[in-house]
């Protein structure tokens, strides 16, 4: 689609806001909004035009038990209590065993929920293979681009003194941006920050470097880059 034609962009935005785009097209349009201000503006205009239809509905009070559940989920996300302010922190000192248990339950619920959100919709980003060697990992993203999934394709031999670290190579002149450490076996799912998400959506390549255990101490690759792989374009 030619996104330079305002009427087409507007139609796409309207269909997105109405909820008529299919899953992949929705995800594609969301990425487009991150890259193209005109798309975001068109989408916001339609959100505002149709908002009265949402606000016309008679409000329904949620169950009283719902807010504590949200609070727990958020506390778990913040590492078990980064968000609440001073008063809450002093209370947390008294209640830490309860809070810890609640946090662990919260984490479990949240992980389960995040996994559930994204389970059926992984899309390939790249197959990571050293030059002239078999692939070591598959890199995938959720359809909405908010998470990545890194699967080791077999046990990865590596000394305990080192880690492999994944990098986005930005399409422009920017420095590599870390996406965290690679698993030595199995898979890891990782939620991206908005900045990582935007960079990955626009990137043409990702790389894997060999780093000290725990990852690069500088925030930039310090060891040899062992893999550079092209990013699959889905749009």
């Amino acid at each position, binding site marked *: 689609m030619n996104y330079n034609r305002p009427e087409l962009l*507007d*139609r796409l935005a*309207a*269909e997105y*806001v*109405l*909820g*008529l785009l*299919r*899953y992949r097209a*929705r995800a594609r349009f969301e990425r487009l909004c991150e890259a193209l201000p005109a798309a975001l503006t068109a989408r*916001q205009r339609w*959100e*505002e*035009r*149709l*908002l*009265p*239809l*949402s*606000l*016309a*509905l*008679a*409000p*329904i*009070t*949620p*169950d009283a038990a*719902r*807010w504590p*559940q*949200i*609070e727990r*989920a*958020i*506390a778990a*996300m*913040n590492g078990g209590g*980064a*968000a*609440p*302010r001073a008063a*809450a922190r002093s209370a947390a000192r008294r209640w830490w065993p309860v809070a810890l248990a609640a946090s662990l339950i919260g984490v479990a619920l*949240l992980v389960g*929920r995040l996994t559930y*959100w994204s389970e*059926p919709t992984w899309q390939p980003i790249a197959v990571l293979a050293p030059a002239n060697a078999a692939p070591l990992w598959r890199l995938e993203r959720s359809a*909405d681009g908010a998470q990545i999934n890194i699967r080791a394709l077999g046990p990865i031999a590596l000394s305990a003194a080192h880690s492999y670290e994944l990098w986005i190579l930005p399409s422009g002149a920017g420095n590599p941006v870390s996406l965290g450490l690679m698993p030595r076996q199995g898979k890891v799912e990782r939620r991206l920050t*908005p900045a990582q998400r935007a960079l990955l959506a626009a990137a043409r390549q990702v790389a894997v470097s060999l780093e000290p255990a725990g990852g690069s101490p500088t925030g930039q690759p310090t060891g040899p880059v062992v893999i550079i792989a092209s990013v699959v374009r889905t749009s």
Partner: protein
Amino acid sequence: MAPALDGNELDELLGRCARRDAAALQALYARTAPQLLAILVRMLGTRAAAEDALQDAFVRIWQQAGQFERIKGRAMAWMVAIARNRAIDLQRAARPTLLLDAAELAGAEQLRVEGAADNAEFAATHAALRRCLELLGASQRLCLLLAYQRGLTQERIAFSIGQPLGTVKSLVRRGLQSLRACMES
């Protein structure tokens, strides 16, 4: 009657959420959750599914508050979009079999934009939408309402109103064009 939703206050609360102030999220929840829950119940059909989606939406609001651009009065539109997107994702994932009967279709047609606007800022859009929806053909209006308020796909709208998919697509497209032209006039 819901408390008036003051756009500036919501902007302020979202800004505090971006600075990781959990009390602000609680205040935001108190102000907006009943309206968001109404939207989700309408889209997902059951109270239980809607409350789960509401929880997901507030977790996302907390996570994404830093991305909210402080454009005056946009806070509610931004939060409604997060809630609606969550409902749309859930509906698509669940492949629901929800179909509407004649009474529900009649109900959808009555879902006009009622009530007074909560603030002056919003009043112009509110009045324009009401006027412009009335000007659409009945079938166009029904298709747009079923999509937006019930979250139905075009295939399910076609099945629900007994029209071919191609007809529904063109009703939606023409309805959107007319609505936009009318609201900008």
